């Protein structure tokens, strides 16, 4: 990638980060629709299926326009359902576009994530084709133009025994078989969408397929209200013997219609293939250069107790448990390098600190935090900021922030709780961990697991002996430096009220963990 492209991507990332911050201010990170763009697309798909199943009973192949007009004419049992069907299809495309843009600019489209990227493109393509067939079903002016333009473009392919375009020239009435095939495609394509969706999420554990209920029903309610207040209208019926002066196009589905009409089918195909090629090539174009890619995690089998916590926590299902081969009882974890995105979540989940690449295991973090403490010698009133380098206002990239020393981590989820313990026991007044918002974690579940490890005893938990009043978590997006500053200020005030913390010498960190019983291990083994 060239420098200009990188700058453009960086600019787009900043723009998205600012939009995130604005939406967080309005809706909070839990209900920020930008964070739930992928799940909103799925929710829209579900709404499409539901409303589509209803509408299909009233559609007539023999009288397509009249049957849709009849549905639209029924204020109580038709019009608003058709409105929801239409708007849900638009929401799906908008949400998918936002989702794809986020994945692209946040550098989450290469390596093991390439499958999700490519299958996501397939999903969008299927949605477009499904939308195309849906608009043709209405058989109004736009439908006729779509059918004619589609036929013109397809006729350029030397695969049809006779030009499809002849169907729409007016020599004969449009055959019922055309509307039947169109309806069949409209119904069959969602099956392909479901299959592509399954592939899309196949490499991630616990995919969030639906947004939080409040957000989902809020969006649904808004579009329902709109469907009632501003109902869908019908364009004029398709007339094969007239040139339409204007047409209502759906900017999300049929935006290309006025454009492609100006070009020959050859150019349209060339443009389509070029755009497709560029999009499909994204994972290969943006991947780090050889040697710069983060190393996949490995397990030090000497330390691994077989507790399987790393396998449970891994957001990409890259870790599996196997029977040990070194003569010891139980299981051992192994990382599949083809699935590992090097997120580091497993480093935070491993109590004996036996997993991770060089310089990023729990043990390495401990070495680093000891050096950090020696360098900064925190006093009992100092708050140490532990910050994710990818988000959290960007403070993770700073040596210090608002007078607080910063201990950077690649992801809050990769932070081993023993680091927090070490900081508190070595005399720091408090430890503020600044992470990305949960739904915007580069590694999907980093902050979720961190919170459970700190407050809910998830392995590798923060030990009981650590005073929780000296530990705080704050979620802040990339452009929310103010949120981090405010949390730091507030926490400093709390720490001052707590008084100085005790300083321990010769701190020993406990690396024990609970190993599940053999029965549970067998279950993990499947």
């Amino acid at each position: 990638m060239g420098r200009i492209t990188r700058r453009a991507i960086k600019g787009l990332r900043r723009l998205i980060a600012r939009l995130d911050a604005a939406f967080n201010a309005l809706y909070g990170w839990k209900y920020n629709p930008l964070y739930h763009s992928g799940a909103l697309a799925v929710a829209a798909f579900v709404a499409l299926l539901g409303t589509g199943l209803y509408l299909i009973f009233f559609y007539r192949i023999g009288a397509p326009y009249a049957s849709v007009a009849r549905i639209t004419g029924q204020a109580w049992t038709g019009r608003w359902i058709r409105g929801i069907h239409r708007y849900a299809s638009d929401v799906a495309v908008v949400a998918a576009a936002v989702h794809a843009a986020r994945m692209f600019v946040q550098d989450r489209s290469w390596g093991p994530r390439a499958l999700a990227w490519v299958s996501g493109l397939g999903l969008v393509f299927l949605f477009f084709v499904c939308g195309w067939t849906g608009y043709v079903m209405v058989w109004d002016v736009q439908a006729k133009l779509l059918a004619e333009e589609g036929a013109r473009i397809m006729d350029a392919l030397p695969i049809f025994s006779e030009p499809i375009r002849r169907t729409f020239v007016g020599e004969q009435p449009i055959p019922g078989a055309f509307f039947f095939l169109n309806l069949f495609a409209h119904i069959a394509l969602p099956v392909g969408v479901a299959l592509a969706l399954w592939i899309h999420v196949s490499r991630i554990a616990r995919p969030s397929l639906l947004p939080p209920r409040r957000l989902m029903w809020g969006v649904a309610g808004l579009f329902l209200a709109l469907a009632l207040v501003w109902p869908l209208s019908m364009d004029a019926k398709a007339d094969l013997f007239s040139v339409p002066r204007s047409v209502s196009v759906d900017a999300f589905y049929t935006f290309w219609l006025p454009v492609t009409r100006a070009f020959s089918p050859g150019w349209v195909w060339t443009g389509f293939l070029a755009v497709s090629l560029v999009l499909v090539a994204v994972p290969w174009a943006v991947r780090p250069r050889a040697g710069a890619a983060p190393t996949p995690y490995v397990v030090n089998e000497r330390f691994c107790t077989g507790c399987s916590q790393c396998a449970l926590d891994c957001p990409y299902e890259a870790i599996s448990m196997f029977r040990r081969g070194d003569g010891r009882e139980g299981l051992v974890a192994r990382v599949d390098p083809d699935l590992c995105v090097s997120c580091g979540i497993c480093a935070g989940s491993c109590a004996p600190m036996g997993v991770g690449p060089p310089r990023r295991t729990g043990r390495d973090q401990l070495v680093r935090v000891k050096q950090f403490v020696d360098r900064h010698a925190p006093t009992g009133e100092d708050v140490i900021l532990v910050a994710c380098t990818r988000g959290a206002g960007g403070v993770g990239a700073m040596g210090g922030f608002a007078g607080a020393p910063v201990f950077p981590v690649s992801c809050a989820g990769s932070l081993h709780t023993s680091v927090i313990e070490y900081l508190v026991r070595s005399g720091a007044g408090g430890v503020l961990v600044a992470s990305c918002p949960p739904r915007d974690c580069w590694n999907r579940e980093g902050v979720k697991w961190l919170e459970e490890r700190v407050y809910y005893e998830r392995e590798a938990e923060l030990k009981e002996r650590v005073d929780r009043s000296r530990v705080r978590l704050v979620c802040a997006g990339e452009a929310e430096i103010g949120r981090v500053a405010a949390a730091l200020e507030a926490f400093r005030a709390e720490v001052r009220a707590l008084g100085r913390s005790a300083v321990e010498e010769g701190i020993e960190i406990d690396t024990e963990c609970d190993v599940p019983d053999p029965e549970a291990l067998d279950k993990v083994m499947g």
Partner: protein
Amino acid sequence: MMRARRVAATVVAVLLTTGVAALSRLPVTLTRSDEARLRLSWRLQGRAGEDCRRPSPEELERLPVHMRNPAACIGRITPYRLEVGVDGRTVVVDTLHAAGARADRPIYVFREIRLPPGDHRVAVRFRALTGALPGAEAGGDPPAAEDPPTGDSSAWAIDEVVRLREREIALVTYDRERRALTVRHGGG
């Protein structure tokens, strides 16, 4: 503060929703012109034929004895010539070949001619090009069409005044019942 945030959140949500709905029914002007169209569309199976020639004695000499055929023939569908005149002006002159990789499919005619609304004298002529390859002899099967041509060359020609309304498409096609080219308008 909280109330102001809620109001702002609601306003933004409503604006976004309305924006999506508005973009889903965007009116686009396709043409500001009132031009009408004369559309020509029909299908013809075409006249199957062979282009044959007599190889020279030298050519025959180079071939194995069992391949020395006195006539070398190439099968083909006869190409057709389309000529369209409007108001005495020739607007289309084209040679149409059979479709398909082997040029053995029917011949498809599809042309659209933009015309101002009003009356126009339209003359269409569609005829087989019987000229064979140099040194060839015409031969082969009689014409086999979707609706077999009558053999009357006037069946594949029209010369009449066509009245076009604003943005109307008039279709010139082959009428199976009349076995002749005909002009159809939207009304029937």
